[in-house]
């Protein structure tokens, strides 16, 4: 494992109850990478994310994580649940909960954590939302708040599960801009599962296609030239 490696998967197979969903995958995620994971429904994208997050032990092969990513210090943006959309909590409460993995048993968050939470909200252009209730926000604003929470949990790697699902095109565009900013200016490594191929291919540094026909890993240009990507070529142009 090299110094810039955050996660290294070698000959990785993942699955449930002995049934493998995804097999023999080799993958390096390095600091500053922007990797998009695409593929058909049921091809194992979410399973791979669960594996990368350490929630699913490998059936075979290995997942190595950089020391700083141990103890759950990964920023994760899960898909929203229905119960969450009308949850009574202030934006500040939600964002602060990102620090939970670095908090002892004390009742209060530290002043430093509070100010960093506000800083992360500011970075995402959502500082003015801090006293609002999460349930009163639009879908795009909610995603920003969850992203700010993910930033509190980790500073080097974000894992996003279909972040633009349910957003209108303008809000989705905004979110992609924010992600590109975090990736380029803050050096944040991004791993994103998405159905929305066009922006993904424009911004991403690498594409991982998982499908029943096999896996493909390469740059967006290589992906579009490959048999897997050819059918998306028109869509991307």
């Amino acid at each position, binding site marked *: 494992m090299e110094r810039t490696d955050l996660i290294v998967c070698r000959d990785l197979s993942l699955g449930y109850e002995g049934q493998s969903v995804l097999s023999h995958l080799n993958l390096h995620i390095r600091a500053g990478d922007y990797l998009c994971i695409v593929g058909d429904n049921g091809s194992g994208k979410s399973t791979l994310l669960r594996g990368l*997050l350490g929630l699913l032990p490998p059936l075979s092969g290995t997942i190595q994580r950089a020391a700083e990513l141990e103890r759950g210090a990964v920023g994760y943006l*899960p898909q929203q649940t229905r119960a969450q959309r009308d949850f009574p909590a*202030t934006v500040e*409460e939600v964002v602060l909960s990102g620090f939970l*993995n670095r908090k002892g048993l004390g009742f209060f968050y530290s002043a430093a954590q509070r100010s960093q939470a506000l800083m992360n909200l500011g970075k995402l252009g959502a500082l003015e939302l801090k006293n609002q209730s999460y349930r009163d926000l639009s879908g795009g604003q909610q995603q920003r708040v969850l992203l700010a929470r993910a930033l509190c949990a980790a500073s080097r790697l974000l894992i996003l599960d279909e972040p633009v699902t349910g957003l209108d095109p303008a809000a989705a565009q905004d979110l992609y801009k924010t992600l590109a900013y975090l990736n380029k200016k803050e050096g944040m490594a991004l791993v994103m599962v998405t159905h929305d191929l066009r922006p993904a291919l424009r911004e991403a540094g690498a594409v991982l296609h998982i499908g029943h026909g096999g896996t493909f890993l390469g740059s967006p240009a290589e992906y579009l030239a490959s048999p897997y990507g050819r059918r998306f070529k028109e869509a991307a142009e």
Partner: protein
Amino acid sequence: MSLWEMFSFPFIQRALVAGALVSLCAALLGVPLVLKRYSMIGDGLSHVSFGALAVAVALGFTPLYFSIPVVVAAAFLLLRVADSPRWNSDAAIAVVSASSLALGVLVISKTSGMTTDVDNYMFGSVLAMSRADVALSVVLCAAVLALFSLFYHRIFAVTFDESFSRATGLRAERYNALLALLTALTIVLGMRMMGAMLISSLVIFPALAAMRLFRSFRGVTLCAAVTSVACFCAGLAVSFAWSTPVGATVVAANLAMFLLACAIAAMRRK
């Protein structure tokens, strides 16, 4: 008879102390349960506790010693069912509820017959609280308050977003189990005064009313705790003054509070 004289009766004192404490616990636990869409678990558990109580009486066991382990076991079962994608969870909970109720009724009909005791199990009695029950309520309430404040931020995180909490290294299933355990204990303790059919409202109503009024999780939690205790005290006083059954009166007070909260929320929106 004045309100003051009412408190000179030892059974009212016991009911007040135990009931207020159980209401407080139920409201605190109710906030995460309702938000996680687990309200039906509370209802299912109250039916299980009725069945357990009937069996305990028939077999001659001390009711609490028998029903506590049974209901705790049922709580873990229902939690697993609710989280399992393979089960249709609300149907499964309904099946467990109806079966426990049926079992309880069958056992009762073959032993003591349908007496006022059965009516008391179903709809509660202000006389049900013994000294031992009050002591147990105090211990339970202290435990719920201590655990709730110790794990407050973790309970919030797990309630709001289980996937994120797991990804950041929190053992979400432990907190779910803790919630289920405490809910089971609260329901067993509260059901004899409130009644098996009515106890789950103590879990659900205060959280629902508080969610109409407050925008923060902390606000909702505190408001639910306060309204729950207030509604219990009001319900007890009314039930004493007009000789109405205590369980139903407390539920009516909670309903009135909920409707009031809805009205306030509607007026604010205008």
